[in-house]
Structure formats: structure tokens, C-alpha cells
């Protein structure tokens, strides 16, 4: 996809999001690269794509109308919503050795 068209697609999606009352925090471009596998969408087989990540704050009722909206857009190959990963405290305590008797009794 040539550059002005990608800009138009992004603008469309962001405007649709803002219309439904979503607060856009950040928009990141993860680069354009060859897709890991060929994706057929909207009667076309795609091999290259641009990856974009939009940081959102919105109510959950927006999710399904947005998925519909992005599904109808021809230029969007794949759409997804993911929860923001909250950076948890690094409390990894390491491998706690389990005695073999506990293992035997705990498992079914």
C-alpha cells in the first residue's frame, strides 16, 4: 500500500474510534514487512503488510461495532483488540522445588 493511502486508512480508523468516544493515547508504526503467511482477505491474497498499534482508552461496548467497521474496510487485513498489559511487579520467585510425594498426591 502506497504511503498516502495508509495515512488515509489510519485517519479513517482513528476518526471512527473518536466518534464512538475512545481516547487515543498513542499510535505506533511497527514497520512494513512481509507477512509470515499469505493472508487472503477481501478476495485478494496479501503477502506484505504494514503493522500499526493504537493505544486506546474506551468502554468495552465499542469493541464489536469497531470490529464490524474494520472488517468492512478493504485495506485492513487483520484486526484485533488486546488488553493493555499492566506491568506487574517483577516478583518471580523462581522454581520452588516440589517433593515427589506431593507431586504424586496432587495430580489426579
Amino acid at each position: 500500500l502506497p504511503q498516502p493511502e495508509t495515512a488515509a486508512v489510519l485517519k479513517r480508523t482513528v476518526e471512527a474510534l473518536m466518534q464512538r468516544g475512545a481516547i487515543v493515547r498513542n499510535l505506533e508504526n511497527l514497520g512494513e514487512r512481509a507477512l509470515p503467511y499469505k493472508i487472503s482477505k477481501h478476495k485478494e491474497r496479501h503477502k506484505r503488510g504494514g503493522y500499526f498499534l493504537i493505544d486506546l482508552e474506551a468502554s468495552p461496548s465499542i469493541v464489536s461495532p469497531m470490529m464490524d467497521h474494520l472488517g468492512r474496510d478493504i485495506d485492513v487485513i487483520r484486526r484485533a483488540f488486546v488488553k493493555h498489559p499492566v506491568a506487574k511487579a517483577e516478583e518471580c520467585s523462581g522454581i520452588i522445588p516440589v517433593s515427589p510425594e506431593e507431586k504424586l498426591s496432587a495430580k489426579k
Partner: protein
Amino acid sequence: QPIKMENPYKDPPKKCVLCGINVDYKNVQLLSQFVSPYTGSIYGRHLTGLCNKKQREITKAIKRAHVFGFMPVMFKNPQFLTDPKLCNIKY
């Protein structure tokens, strides 16, 4: 009289490879290190040697990366074939 105290010579608990590292579905290089280069199947805990939490996080992240189109499903990305070995598997 001997005082009761915890064993001061105990070693700190053994840490797995990813103990301090945040796992994300976006860094495909890290995720590809736990995938077979021939079939693209995810290695089990007996091969990776990770703790419970991290193994689950990695599996979820790999499956997400498959769906979102970040990581190939049936094989390992040839770009990442020469990464250092983290899993104890013999080819």
C-alpha cells in the same frame, strides 16, 4: 544454647531463563526461541525448563502472535534460526 534460625547457607531459589523478563506477543525473536524450527510446534515445559507462570505466558503470547500475523505457524522464521539455544533439545 543453639538459637533457632533459618538456614543461612541456603542457596537463593533457582530462577528460570525468563525470570525477570517481560514477555510480549510483539517480540517475535524471543518467542521463536521456544518453537521448533522444523514443525513450528511450541516446546513443552520439560524442554524449555521454565516455571509455571512463564510457560503459560509464553504459550499465550505465541498463540496471539500466530493469530495477529506476527509469527509463522508451521515453521520458525529463518531470520531467527541462528539464535542461541534456550531449550535442551537434540536434533
